[in-house]
């Protein structure tokens, strides 16, 4: 049995507390009036602000928050009116910032455990012989899907209740002036949105809990019926997962840019969560191994996980590039605004994540020997996880805060709070059961696995 080390527990509590304070500071310092927003922007931009104002305003037209778009065209003719609508736009962006920071971090850690759940189901459905030793580790990580999923759901409910302006299509005034959003209202309406979210989360949590129960029952049983049932429900879950994951990515991420759409978006989000999930499995397994648990896990298991990290990083890049290049090449105005705002306002995060998610793992994890060096995998994993946090950041922030982004207190606070909660919840679950399954039919093969 694994015992939660005190240092890790205290560390996770400190991270949660500090994160909470940072997040609270972020919420308290968000402006509540146009005047405050103006003062914040002025102090941030300093004296150079006046000159750049014109360009900035024009680039706002292309931005994700389309609330002002309609009035924007008319307003260009009337200078004062334009200023007023622009200021209100900036106010909304600044108010969105702590919410978006909260949402990005909440979704990022939730998506890790969802990615692990998909990996776990694939291992079961594929009857992989190498991975059963890591099943308890994966089950520990997927335990976070319950609190993480509930928090994401609560944030979505608060958005529907107009506590923030992250999803512009939830604002009835905006929809009333927007033909495109009216056309999508059959799908993008608050009630159906929450019902869908509840179905997705319910299905995922149900599979996680049921599969875990069967996995534990298999240890105590004297036949393989639990294992076989687990195999069947895992295969069924994968079908459910692929459909719901795709819809989830439209709902929870793509709909912050409700004028924009992309067909491979679901796969793109999937690749991001899958590679982060595999990375976390490798990191948790290496940590537990270094503490003397999981003594049967050898370098070959880590090598296999690192190969998955390497391969799926490239798969993510393939999807990222396919989405980017198709839109860049055709340059259709209604689609290309998505990338124009990102390249104009988010140059460093947008291309920086490409270095962290593609070039770095490509060069570092290509060598077969390095994939067996545990600290090497940990270092690569940290970079990959930061890269995929930036990926979620780049998907949400440009639509909600636009050019008012900054990685400051609320963003770091979000990472700390959810990171602490994630570590606490995962390692607490790991203490509940022995770390090695007993009666899995493949456990001996997994113990003997070497590559």
């Amino acid at each position, binding site marked *: 049995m694994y015992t939660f080390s005190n240092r890790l527990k205290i560390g996770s509590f400190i991270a949660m507390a500090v994160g909470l304070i940072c997040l609270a500071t972020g919420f308290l310092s968000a402006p509540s009036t146009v005047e405050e927003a103006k003062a914040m922007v002025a102090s941030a931009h300093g004296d150079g602000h006046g000159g750049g104002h014109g360009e900035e305003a024009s680039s706002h037209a292309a931005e994700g928050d389309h609330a002002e778009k309609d009035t924007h065209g008319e307003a260009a003719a009337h200078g004062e009116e334009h200023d007023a609508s622009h200021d209100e736009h900036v106010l909304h962006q600044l108010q969105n910032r702590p919410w978006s920071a909260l949402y990005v971090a909440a979704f990022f850690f939730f998506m890790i455990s969802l990615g692990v759940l998909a990996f776990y189901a694939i291992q079961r459905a594929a009857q992989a012989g190498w991975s059963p030793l890591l099943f308890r580790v994966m089950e520990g990580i997927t335990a976070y899907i319950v609190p993480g999923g509930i928090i994401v759901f609560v944030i979505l409910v608060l958005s529907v209740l107009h506590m923030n302006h992250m999803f512009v299509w939830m604002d009835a005034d905006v929809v009333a002036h927007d033909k495109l959003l009216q056309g999508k209202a059959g799908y993008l309406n608050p009630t159906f949105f929450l019902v869908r979210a509840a179905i997705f989360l319910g299905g995922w949590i149900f599979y996680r809990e049921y599969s875990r129960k069967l996995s534990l029952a298999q240890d105590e049983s004297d036949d393989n019926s639990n294992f076989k049932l687990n195999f069947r429900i895992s295969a069924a879950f994968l079908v459910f997962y692929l459909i719901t994951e795709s819809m989830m990515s439209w709902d929870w991420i793509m709909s912050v840019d409700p004028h924009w759409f992309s067909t491979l978006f679901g796969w793109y989000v999937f690749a991001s969560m899958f590679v982060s999930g595999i990375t976390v499995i490798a990191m948790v397994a290496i940590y537990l191994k270094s503490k003397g648990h999981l003594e049967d896990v050898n370098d070959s298991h880590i090598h296999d996980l690192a190969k998955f990290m390497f391969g799926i990083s490239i798969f993510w890049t393939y999807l990222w*590039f396919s989405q*980017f*290049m198709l839109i*860049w*090449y055709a*340059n259709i105005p209604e689609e290309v605004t998505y990338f124009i705002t990102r390249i104009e306002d988010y140059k460093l995060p947008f291309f920086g994540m490409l270095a962290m998610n593609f070039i770095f793992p490509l060069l570092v994890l*290509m060598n*077969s020997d390095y994939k067996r060096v545990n600290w090497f995998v940990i270092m690569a994993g940290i970079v990959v996880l930061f890269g995929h946090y930036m990926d979620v950041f780049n998907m949400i922030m440009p639509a909600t805060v636009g050019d008012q982004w900054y990685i400051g207190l609320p963003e770091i606070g979000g990472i700390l709070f959810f990171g602490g909660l994630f570590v606490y919840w995962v390692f607490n679950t790991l203490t509940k059961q022995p770390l090695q399954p007993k009666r899995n039919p493949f456990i001996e093969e997994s113990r003997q696995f070497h590559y």
Partner: protein
Amino acid sequence: MASKVIQALYTDDDILMHAVKKVRAEHHHIEEVYTPFPVHGLDKAMGLEDTRIAITSFMYGCLGLTVAIVMMNYIMIEDWPQDIGGKPSFSYLENMPAFVPIMFELTVFFAAHLMVITFYLRSRMWPFKKAENPDVRTTDDHFLMELGIHDNEKELTALLWDTGAVEINVTEKDS
């Protein structure tokens, strides 16, 4: 120079592996092992060095990427920077997404083909090459281990019979 070699035939890869380990433990040099299919772990048991072909492949891939970049930079940007459907041909970076498919394919093409050619050269394989097969049965169901004889024929024969060989031949070999 002709030299004498002793060839021991086996019918099972497990017995062959044990034989290889035993012969190595007695500090005899194994000249060659002929098998009908890859035997896992044989290279480790024989103490062969790891292959470096993956490293050559990486370098060929870098070469392919360079060729693609230099070629398209010259053709599309430097030699005749035409406006083709509004694509920005002002600099390589500006038009790079359009070049990536070719950069990728040429990288793979160079890495794969040059590595295969390296493999052929290094393994001395070509279409009209004379087969170096000491016994035709080694392509079907027999395994053959070959050791050089240095005035120790009796000792080697005894050792090889001991390892479970089904047949032992002593032949002259041109080397």
